[in-house]
């Protein structure tokens, strides 16, 4: 039921919940939402919900200690409470990450990475007095556990939840929320899940036997699949949020139109990127302490990002490559950008585009293949200069292009900002309304005939 693309969620949980939510008088809706979230989470993760249940009051108590001592100069309590809260939350996350890495992933509570990040953000925002008043226990619990975000984010900020004011559910919000939800569902079910089959076929063939064009096709198909999967999820989550009365949370801002890797990651999973920026990079000093300190801070942030995604060495390589490229962009290409000559600026612009369109797909392969020896085989096929493949069918890519080009093409179209913008602009026009309704039923069809496909970010 915890998958937004499961029939249990679509045809049992959500209709029942929404009806109950809408008939509840506005001032009691927080309770309906909390009860719905509790049902959702307990069904999803069983007795492991106790972890979240325990962390909510503890964080609230520590947060209140921080809040109450806010005006006391040099208050020991103020800092100690914050340190205690961070140790508690981060310690819990690290402990469960290690447990999961040790093969006990069945004992890791659902969505722990995401609600722990919210908890740390909550404490830091209280410490830095970004909140006007102390949140009530009810609102705190809602913020951490709201079912639209508890499994995979987005990592909303407490302030953006606007919990203190009564949420207004208006028809426009419901309509738009429904639009984003179905759009996201279509990306997930009709594109990401189809492209997933292509990747499974590469695994089936064995990386050592891929033709070089197929290895590259696989890298791009995986990149598109991950994008459609996670952006699709995020749109669904934000759409559901709108239907309940929250504002739209942006998690993806057309990353593939980004200029350079740093820009890509400002746009990709931006609620996570912003979290690392605000609660790790800037507290470490950000980029204000000179080049060496900036590089140190970047290395720390990306080491943490790598660890957060997984403890296998491929994630360290992945984040290592990215941080090197970000440093290279900042200190080697940065001066080009600022230089007066148009030629150098053009060189910089071309390089930055190449980073996004060529290098990023390669890094996604590193991200995807967790076994290093397998990763090496894949890389040898992408760059076949030293090693010959084994039993390669040189025309294999034609077969897969013939089979998958419609899905690849649609996904590429979604990489262009204009597609999404046009859809959003004309979302209320009759043709789009009819098309979106039709898409919904096509999605339902595919959900019924295929076995459940979990979202990729469920693993993190």
């Amino acid at each position: 039921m915890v998958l937004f693309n499961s029939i249990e969620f679509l045809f049992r949980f959500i209709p029942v919940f929404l009806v109950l939510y809408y008939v509840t008088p506005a001032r009691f809706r927080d309770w309906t939402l909390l009860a719905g979230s509790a049902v959702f989470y307990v069904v999803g993760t069983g007795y492991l919900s106790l972890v979240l249940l325990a962390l909510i009051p503890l964080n609230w108590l520590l947060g209140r200690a921080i809040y109450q001592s806010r005006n006391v100069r040099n208050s020991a309590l103020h800092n100690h409470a914050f340190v205690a809260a961070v140790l508690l939350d981060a310690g819990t996350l690290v402990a469960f990450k290690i447990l999961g890495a040790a093969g006990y992933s069945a004992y890791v509570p659902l969505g722990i990475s995401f609600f722990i990040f919210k908890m740390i953000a909550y404490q830091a925002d209280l410490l830095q007095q970004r909140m006007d008043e102390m949140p009530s226990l009810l609102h705190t619990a809602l913020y951490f556990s709201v079912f639209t975000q508890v499994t995979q984010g987005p990592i909303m900020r407490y302030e953006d939840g606007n919990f203190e004011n009564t949420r207004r559910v208006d028809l426009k919000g419901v309509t738009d929320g429904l639009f984003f939800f179905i759009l996201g569902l279509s990306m997930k079910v009709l594109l990401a899940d189809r492209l997933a089959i292509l990747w499974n076929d590469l695994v089936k063939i064995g990386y050592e036997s891929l033709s070089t064009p197929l290895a590259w096709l696989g890298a791009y198909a995986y990149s598109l699949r991950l994008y459609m999967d996670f952006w699709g999820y995020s749109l669904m989550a934000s759409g559901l949020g709108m239907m309940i009365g929250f504002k739209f949370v942006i998690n993806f801002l057309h990353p593939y139109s980004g200029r350079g890797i740093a820009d890509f990651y400002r746009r990709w999973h931006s609620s996570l990127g912003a979290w690392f920026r605000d609660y790790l990079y800037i507290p470490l000093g950000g980029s204000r302490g000179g080049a060496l300190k900036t590089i140190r801070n970047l290395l720390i942030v990306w080491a943490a990002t790598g660890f957060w995604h997984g403890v296998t060495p491929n994630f360290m390589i992945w984040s290592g490559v990215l941080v090197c490229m970000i440093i290279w962009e900042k200190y080697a290409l940065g001066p080009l950008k600022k230089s007066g000559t148009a030629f150098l600026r053009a060189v910089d612009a071309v390089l930055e585009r190449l980073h996004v369109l060529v290098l990023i797909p390669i890094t996604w392969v590193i991200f995807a293949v967790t076994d290093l020896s397998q990763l090496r085989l894949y890389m040898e096929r992408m760059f076949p200069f030293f090693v010959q493949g084994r039993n390669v069918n040189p025309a294999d890519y034609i077969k897969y292009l013939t089979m998958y080009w419609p899905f690849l093409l649609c996904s590429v179209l979604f990489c262009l900002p204009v597609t999404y913008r046009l859809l959003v602009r004309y979302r209320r026009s009759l043709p789009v309304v009819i098309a979106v309704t039709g898409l919904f039923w096509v999605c339902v069809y595919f959900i019924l005939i295929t076995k459940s496909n979990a979202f990729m970010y469920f693993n993190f």
Partner: protein
Amino acid sequence: MRKFLRRIFQNMGLPIMLAASVIILTAVGFAGRNTIYAPYAEEYEGYPPFLAVIGAVHDRIWPWQLVMGGGKDQEMEAEEEETPSEEEIPVPGEELVQNDSAVEIPPLDNSFEGPVDGPMPEGICNEVMQAEDYGVASLSFLSTAETEYNTDTEGMFARNGRYFKLRAVDSSYFADALFIGDSRTVGLCEYGGMKGKANFLAKESVNVYNILDTELRYTNTDGDSWGTYMEDVLRDGHYRKVYMCLGVNELGIGTTHMYYEKYRELVEMIRENQPDAIIYIEGIMHVSKRYSSSDSARNNTVIVQRNEAIATLANGYDIFYIDMNPYVCEENGDLISDLTGDGIHLKASAYENWDRSLFENAIVRDHSDYSGEEEPVFGQEEEESGT
């Protein structure tokens, strides 16, 4: 008024449209709940009735068949009968006894209780079988000495009749062979050494239940390939050897007995259309330990049961059971993990093992089967039976 409606649509177009489609589909589902949607209503019990309407589309049952009449209904019912649903979990042990045909098939003795981690049952696929030892694959299916067979597709390994030893051949043997199968055979066609030396008729995800209705891909020895149906190929072509490798997509669908019955029908159909072909029943290749232990319906225990069942279709004369598992499995019967990426299929680089099992385990009855360099060796018992 018009302006008002326009504003309503502006604000609520999508919910209205969605609600309207829900109402229509619900009405359709409700109207057909006892006729065309009956089986689906059962499948999606506890969900809104429109799911049955959507689910039925997969079986090409469209809402307008509600009004267009009954002929379709009967057709569908017949189909329903033939195609077992996934919910029917195999009940080993009993299923083959229920068979009331002339052949007496003893019950399977290994009971099935979820995934297995232990060793495979004794005698299965541990080594390549010699012709006279076919029965080792499935001792429980051996017929007793005086059993008489009424048709060609009945019977066991024909211990008391003529039979032939498996022997090694070169690739020329396969020039008049047809390989029929699912995604595994597609892989053999694309990555095996037989590419361009044999004919293939295969398609991803086909099984014994749907293979006759599915458009398959035919690839001939010139490497040309086109879509066609099994019936047409068997009717129009002429093959001296027909290899059949089906069974992995059936795991989790139907019982072993249903699988066996369908398999037998297919073998009979091949026999009828290709009277002088050697029919090879290829045992289902096992899956990896990791895959086998993660799935209660698709594991090596069930595969072994099913192989035992289809092995009984061999008659040791023109229908043979061959098994590639010794070439790709560990001693305990699990598919060697280095040979597979997904646990079910051989990697491209591992198809040579399947090739080898085919090259080393062929039947040669006379020169028209194979005119390789070596003289064909005839089974000893054949000479005896002649005396």
